[in-house]
């Protein structure tokens, strides 16, 4: 009698101990994850400009830096936001469209050079565009697209093709072939099948590709750094990077304010769409 209750007690206390350890681990991870983010938020509310003396919970907090970003005549923040939006929307639209066409051809047609094309895409997606930056710089300067947003958009769209085409092709492959074959028998043309049957069915993966290509220009700063020269053409990432790069400790709080204003919308989008992003990625990558 005594021993069984003892055992039960043992099991219960073991259970509690385990749960405590699990929760403790989760709590530690919470601190590690949230601390840097909250620190940046706190810093952006500090009245001073430097890193030194700034604290995570400012004593007399102010929205001074946010005001500066929006209203100060020396601030280009809104222009950068506009530039980033232009680049992001254009990249996302054109990349998705072109990727779709390519992926559809590779998934549904058997043509000469198809196999080699697939191999080439696999290889090319392994090479970072960064490796060829010098050549891109010279290429853009010979066609007078240096320091323009169009030049950046073209490079982003071209670079997006190999990687994303594979993802989308993988998804197209999972759509039953009978659908478009029966449409063909009913007399539908190539374009009709593509636009009215395939595209609607591939919506989930198209959303993923569009979103990724929309986000990438917000986060990339290397290509803009090489291509863009004048501050009124900067994208957000580059402009913010220059805040900290020029005089490190001087503008850090301002950087924090600007960074929070882009981190917030982007992370919200990711958090809301994470489920679709993950399923889209796994289905495309495991089947493609």
């Amino acid at each position, binding site marked *: 009698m005594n021993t069984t209750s003892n055992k039960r007690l043992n099991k219960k206390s073991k259970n509690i101990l385990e749960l405590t350890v*699990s929760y403790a*681990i*989760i709590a530690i*991870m919470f601190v590690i*994850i*949230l601390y*840097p*983010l909250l*620190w*940046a938020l706190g810093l952006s509310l500090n009245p001073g400009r430097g*890193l*030194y003396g700034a604290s995570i919970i400012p004593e007399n907090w102010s929205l001074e830096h946010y005001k500066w970003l929006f209203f100060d005549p020396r601030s280009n923040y809104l222009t950068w936001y506009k530039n980033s939006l232009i680049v992001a929307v254009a990249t996302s639209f054109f990349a998705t469209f*072109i990727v779709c*066409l*390519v992926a*559809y*051809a590779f998934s549904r047609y*058997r*043509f000469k050079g198809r196999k080699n094309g697939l191999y080439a895409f*696999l*290889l*090319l997606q*392994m*090479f*970072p565009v*960064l*490796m*060829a*930056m*010098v*050549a*891109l710089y*010279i*290429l853009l300067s010979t066609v007078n697209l240096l320091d323009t947003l169009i030049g950046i958009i*073209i490079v982003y769209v*071209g*670079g997006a*093709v*190999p990687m994303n*085409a594979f993802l989308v092709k*993988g998804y197209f492959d999972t759509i039953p072939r009978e659908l478009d074959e029966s449409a063909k028998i009913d007399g539908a043309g190539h374009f009709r099948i593509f636009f009215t049957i395939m595209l609607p069915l591939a919506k989930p993966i198209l959303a993923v590709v569009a979103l990724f290509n929309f*986000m990438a220009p*917000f*986060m990339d700063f*290397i290509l803009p750094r090489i291509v863009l020269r004048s501050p009124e053409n900067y994208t957000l990432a580059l402009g913010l990077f220059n805040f900290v790069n020029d005089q490190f*400790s001087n503008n*850090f709080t301002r*950087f*924090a304010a600007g*960074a929070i204003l*882009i981190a917030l919308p*982007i992370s919200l989008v*990711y*958090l809301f769409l*994470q489920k679709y992003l*993950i*399923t889209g990625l*796994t289905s495309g*990558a*495991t089947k493609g």
Partner: protein
Amino acid sequence: MPTNTDNRKENLINPRHNPTLAAVLSIIPGIGQIYNRRFVKGAALFILFAAFFSAMYSFIVSGLQGLVTLGEIPREHDSRVFLSEGILSLIFFAFFAMFYVLNITDAYKDAKRIQLGWKVPNMREGFKNAWDTSFPYLLVTPGLFLLLFVVVFPLLFMIFLAFTNYNLYNAPPRHLLSWVGFDNFIRLFTIAEWRSTFFNVLSWTLVWTFVATTLQIALALFLAVVVNDPRIKFKRLIRTVFILPWAVPAFVTIIIFSALFNDNFGAINLHMIEPLFGTKIPWMTDVTWSRVAIIMIQVWLGFPFVYALFTGVLQSISSDWYEAADMDGANRWQKFRNITFPHVMFATAPLLIMQYSFNFNNFNIIYLFNQGGPAVRGQTAGGTDILISWIYGLTFDNQQYNMAAAISIILGILVASFAFFQFRRTRSFKEEGNI
């Protein structure tokens, strides 16, 4: 054997129509097709080729000549322009040659079919067929075009640069470039300074890729298993917080971290290390500590994505497995090793491999944390520079374009061979071969 050929000859309906003659006639594009009595097609081909030829001939010839000489008059000829025009000519020429060969084989094949009694389709059908066969090419063309100019052209340019003497002291337009063969590669492996830098950077790149990625996967797996326990509450909240590092743009968090790790007034030294140990850790100025910091930051940045993947897989493992294991009296570790781990790994292997290749070229974190620093005496690469960031530094800071290009080629070969072996083994590509 002779009877066999006789048989085949008897089967020919138009024995006088000669495929070889059609092919030979096609040396002037379109004539072969006209011989096959496909007049519209032949005329169209002839006009297209003639137009291309007359428009591009001089560009291609001068481009290829320029590629050989790289310019002759210093200060007037810019070798880089010669190089890029030469590469463009090569690309155009390759296209021309491809279409030329296609034109000849097309004439030959049509003639063969005519021999066997195939009726030349009328114009309408001909158009329909042409539309059907060329449709996939039409779909691919815009993507291919962009790819050629944005990815292939720059890569070719870089490959050619590796065989020139383009550096800070010998830069166009003031000087002319010249071809130096494999000199850059030889220098990379014979001059002690280059050689030791190269192998230092390469070994750190490999260590970095392996350690950072594996840690990030291990942490993700551990957390996913801990949180997946049915007794844990608030799963949605936990999941949301755990995914935050993935959601916040990486360049923002890396800059925040580089401020946190700042030697003198970063919060980590000021509020954690100094009160606890009474000393400061030189995160930015000591090679080993920088490396430790960078790996920790990458684990912070990279685990959420893998975590999200793993949670998805864990939820899909049928509970039958675990119940059967319970019946057999398996302990927790055995269940993890024999059920959870294989399931998770099998389902996510390609994506995990992509994580490794991503970190191999993870320029952002290295550059944004402390520009690849701290500087190391006697070499052009900093202590945390990986190959890709070293190449960036050589190109944009030291202007050693030729050496940067040579190292890029080596990096490219490494990546490509890894990719080749990897993808040959994956299931989907084997299936692809059967189609």
